[in-house]
């Protein structure tokens, strides 16, 4: 029965070509993020010299310590990743260079490769997106489930708490907290996670209020199934679809919040790249180094749009009206 439901969702989702394309982009970006060290690295995958085989990316070979295999003088068979630079290595001889065959997306003001930073930036941005959303989805589900299932005074307290949280201008709350804690990857994730759960909580609460009145729940209660079991096994799976949609939108907005924070200098610490950080660095050169602005800007745009399109596709797919057909 459950697989049947998700199968129907998938069938509906497939009908929307644009959402499918966006989904492919999302998966693609996900793999870029996971495989970042394999896509951009200053070391080769394989290095064969005098019957000696090295895998510099995967193991640190002591006899290769401090040796730059890209330089002349290290002959032998080498396979390099597509981008032959690490995200933090600088080259003061190639500062703010436009895209060329050597640096396909150009360099920044320390001569660092933009392509490498963009790839690692994807890692940071998407990682923050997923973790922060995971945090607030968990909190939201717990809060919403408790409020929706028990009702009464529990519902009253949680609902007021949600309204209280909604009153805060989230972005400024985040800025304030980061100013006090000091900015870092972890604090950005935690802060977004702790402030973003209200939407999910309201959705779950609504679903639970509806499901609570269903006959199969009454039946479960009648035969003495305990509350935890009912919530986790019988109610939660049936209320997950809208949560999933909301989480997809959530990832998009989290990536955007992280970019904004980094753009303002409240995000990750240097030299860690994130897309917002890249944009922040580009501000000084906006009038002549277009690639520093356009490229990370475009990456953010594509990612946010893709997540939103996937979210919209999912929303249409779980809509009962479209399901009936």
């Amino acid at each position, binding site marked *: 029965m459950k697989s049947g439901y998700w199968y129907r969702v998938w069938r509906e989702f497939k009908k929307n070509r644009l959402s499918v394309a966006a989904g492919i982009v999302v998966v693609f970006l996900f793999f870029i993020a996971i495989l970042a060290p394999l896509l951009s690295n200053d070391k080769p995958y394989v290095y064969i010299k005098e019957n000696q085989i090295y895998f510099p990316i995967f193991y640190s070979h002591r006899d290769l310590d401090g040796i730059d295999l890209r330089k002349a003088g290290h002959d032998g068979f080498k396979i390099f990743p597509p981008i032959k630079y690490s995200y*933090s290595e600088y080259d003061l001889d190639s500062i703010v260079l436009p895209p060329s065959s050597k640096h396909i997306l150009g360099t920044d*003001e320390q001569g660092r490769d933009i392509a490498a930073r963009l790839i690692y930036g994807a890692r940071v941005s998407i990682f923050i997106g997923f973790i922060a959303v995971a945090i607030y989805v968990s909190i939201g589900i717990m809060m919403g489930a408790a409020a929706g299932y028990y009702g009464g005074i529990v519902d009253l307290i949680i609902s007021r708490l949600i309204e209280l949280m909604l009153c805060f201008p989230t972005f400024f709350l985040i800025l304030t907290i980061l100013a006090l804690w000091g900015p870092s990857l972890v604090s950005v994730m935690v802060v977004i996670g702790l402030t973003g759960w209200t939407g999910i909580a309201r959705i779950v609460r609504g679903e639970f209020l509806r499901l609570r009145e269903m006959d199969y729940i009454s039946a479960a209660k009648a035969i003495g199934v305990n509350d935890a079991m009912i919530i986790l096994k019988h109610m939660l799976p049936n209320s997950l679809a809208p949560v999933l949609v909301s989480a997809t939108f959530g990832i998009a907005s989290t990536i955007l919040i992280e970019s904004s924070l980094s753009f303002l200098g409240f995000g990750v*610490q240097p*030299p860690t790249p994130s897309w917002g950080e890249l944009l922040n660095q580009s501000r000084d050169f906006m009038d*002549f180094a277009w690639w520093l602005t356009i490229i990370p800007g475009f990456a953010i745009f594509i990612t946010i749009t893709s997540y939103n399109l996937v979210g919209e596709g999912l929303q249409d797919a779980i809509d009962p009206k479209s399901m009936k057909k």
Partner: protein
Amino acid sequence: MHQGYSVNFIKSLIITSMFFLGCSASVTDNDPYTLYMHLSSDPGTLNPITSSEAITSTINENIYETLVDRDFDTLEIVPQLAVKWKISDDKLRYIFYLRKGVLWSDGVEFTADDVVYSYRVIKDPSTACAPLKVYYIDIRDVRKIDRYTVEFIYTKPYFLGLNYCGSMPIIPKHIFDDGTDFNTHKNNRHPVGTGAYIFKRWDTGKRIVLSANPRYRGKKPDIRNVVFKIVSEPSVALQMLKKGELDVMSVRPIEWVRQTNSESFIKNFYKLEYYIPNYSWIGWNSRTEYFKDKRVRKAMTHLINRDAIREKLLFGLGKLVTGTFYIYSRAYNPDIKSIEYDPEKAKRLLSEAGWRDTDGDGILDRNGKKFSFTFTIASEKKFSERLTSILKEDLARVGIEMNINRYEWAVFADRLHKRNFEAITLSWLLSYSDDPYQLWHSSQVDAGSNFCNFKNREADRIIEKARVEFNDRKRNKIYHRFGEILYDEQPYTFLFCSPSLVAVNKRFTNVKVHLRGLNYLEWMIRDKK
């Protein structure tokens, strides 16, 4: 903030009429007699005593005057509010004869009472001006002899006595001595001075407007109004400069090299480069286990490729320094050889100090502790960010792990003052003749500006001896020795003296670069309408 707005009916009327004047002025934004300057942010206050910000002095130097001034070219001390002065033979008494008939911009005459009052305010423990107080600790009293004569009495001789007595900020007693709290006085946002310009208004976040002082005794400047426009984003300010909405702007090295060389820019702007006393540095906090040892501090300097950074990151705009004095002053020791970039030597020094990679994880360690420290930077400073990102890479290569923590300015300053850092980078803005006491005397370790815990007996003795040495040649010789000690100890990695890079619209003529910088009182307007 709101104290500037008076509830008094007549005063508010004046404010309203000024507002209308201001509006009409901003419609015709290109008034040829107005100089448009760039400010990167609002000053905290315009009170010359409580402020230690550079922005405040950029504005106040037009409004307030001091007893003496320095000549723009020779840097000699010249009369300003005082016409002459006498120093007693024991160097303990300084008598200043004040200029008669100088009026504050509200028409009240400037007298010895104002000088005495200003001194009392600085000495008053409730006045929030700790950095300024340091310079007047050795003064026993300031006495009024008559309406136009004041005497400063020192408890012990001090070679910069004339300098500090003469450059003490002077504020009008009749304005500030009204029984209200000095630190939050309403005139902190509305200065009344004796200088060439008078304060007109301050629209927070937008502009500060000055206009020529009709009562000013000197030659009337050609520039009738000075408008400081507050633009926080430098790239926006540069666009405004190019469009003619700003006349003067300090540009950054990359803009100097890449964004201000077009034919039209050269045709329309003077590009002026000059060195006022300043230097940037990296401080190694010797309270920490890593930087307690001077060999480690030396190794760090060996690891920082200052020549390459100067060449590439600063586009060659800057001079490498090896000491704490202004690079063009006689106190600066030009014979000290800069520690060269040499990672191998650094490794040797580190290993001598006990830092070796014993567990084979690629990171140096000593007694089980890894060499892993945190570099604290201020988020407003892009150069710090670039410098530290480069340093992180370079240090990783010799097995030192460095993290960068970037803080918002207020948090950064708090950590600095509490000595809560391992390594830090900043710049000092110096004066033309300087006393290293504030930065390097061991008495300043806990509360003063000796942030990195520099303590050296001989250096202390030299600093104290130099303070009472009035012969310039002898004192400079002592300071050269001080420079040697300091460089040998390497409490800082001394970086660069950075030039002021200023673009000025060519609608002004007689724009000259003096040793002290630019003086727009002498500028002329090319096309007078």
